[in-house]
């Protein structure tokens, strides 16, 4: 089978405050693959993820998406990517539905109905509740609902399991597996054990 790399990291280096976080990092990811970035605190996991989104500039090296450097693709690349970072990126003053509608307006909306999306992440009755009144775990689930209401090939997730309970973790795990089965790519960091036997996981340890 002929496989083309969708996402290619070429000779990437990142330096912060005269400290080399990682250098000469090269790898490539194909459809249905997942990259799990590991490492101790401060080893540059978040920096790597932010470089992959294009928010941060790498000190050296390039990222290729379908063979084109991502900085050249600009918003053409961004509409293929959904990023959930440390911050949830939801507005406290808006309701859950208003937040999701904004996500759809700014991105590449999927065909999913917003009420269904809320039901999927167990927030169905909270549609008209202001996010300020949600718990940290519920807010995290709402942030991750971004993955359902938009259509993207590449999911970049920074510690997605933070403040989630076991049931929600299982929920998102199955969501990740479906995405990978449909040919998507996931890049994520996590301190939790990832137990997905059916998934082709590449591990990258930044501590070493």
């Amino acid at each position, binding site marked *: 089978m002929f496989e083309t790399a969708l996402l290619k990291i070429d000779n990437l280096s990142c330096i912060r405050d005269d400290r080399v976080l990682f250098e000469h990092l090269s790898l490539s990811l194909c459809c249905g693959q997942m990259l799990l970035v590991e490492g101790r605190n401060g080893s540059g996991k978040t920096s790597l993820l932010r470089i992959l989104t294009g928010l941060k500039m790498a000190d050296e090296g390039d990222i290729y998406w379908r063979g084109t450097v991502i900085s050249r693709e600009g918003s053409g690349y961004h509409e293929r990517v959904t990023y959930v970072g440390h911050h949830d*990126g939801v507005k406290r003053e808006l309701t859950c539905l208003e937040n999701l509608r904004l996500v759809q307006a*700014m991105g590449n*909306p999927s065909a999913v109905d917003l009420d269904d999306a809320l039901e999927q992440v167990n927030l169905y009755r909270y549609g008209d509740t202001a996010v300020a009144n949600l718990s940290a775990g519920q807010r995290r689930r709402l942030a991750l609902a971004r993955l359902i209401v938009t259509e993207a090939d590449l999911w970049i997730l920074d510690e997605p399991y933070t403040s989630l309970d076991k049931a929600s973790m299982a929920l998102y795990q199955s969501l990740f597996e479906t995405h990978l089965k449909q040919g998507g790519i996931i890049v994520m960091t996590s301190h939790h054990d990832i137990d997905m036997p059916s998934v082709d996981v590449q591990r990258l340890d930044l501590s070493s």
Partner: protein
Amino acid sequence: MKRYSLTQAFFYLLKRDLTLSFRNRAEFANPLLFFILVITLFPLAIGAEPVLLSRIAPGIIWVAALLAAMLSLDSIFRSDFDDGSLEQLLLSAHPMPILVLAKVTAHWLVTGLPLLLVSPVLAIMLGMPSEAQGILLLTILIGTPILSLIGSIGVALTVGLPKGGIILSLLILPLYVPVLIFAASAVEGAAGGLDVSAQLYMLLSFLFLALSLSPLATAAALKISMN
């Protein structure tokens, strides 16, 4: 589902920002209150001399408007930066300068427009001659959007800094001075019965320059701040 068109996205973001300011009313009333307070304090401090007050009225109103605008600037991007919404906007499928323009428009509607609405009352209070009042409104209508547009560049550059407030003032104030000079001189000229079209054209040219260039600069500055 089809992607939102650029116009839809623009108005959606505008509506979202207006909703947010409506739900945070107290915070956004602050600059307006400041504007009214500063102007009402002047007659108390320098005495109720109608001749003197009406002479310095254009200057007072414009300095107060400028400071009120500076006071409100930080709110353009601060909360979005803190909760990660700004990251998501930068990763949007739509071009960032247009989204920036939507945010600045919303900012002007909640902070600039109220100044325009209360300034006739304040102008009468300071005894400004009636022929100058129309020109005052016109300068505020043209001038405050310039303040918001230029200010957004400064905020975008300093939003990532922990104590950006002082740098923001130093960065932005010199750029505000031309607006202040031309606007105050237009109102003063009108009060003296002179033709002030030159000053107004100058202000208008500032406005169009800021309108076309500042969203680009702001979008680029945000990218740098996020790095």
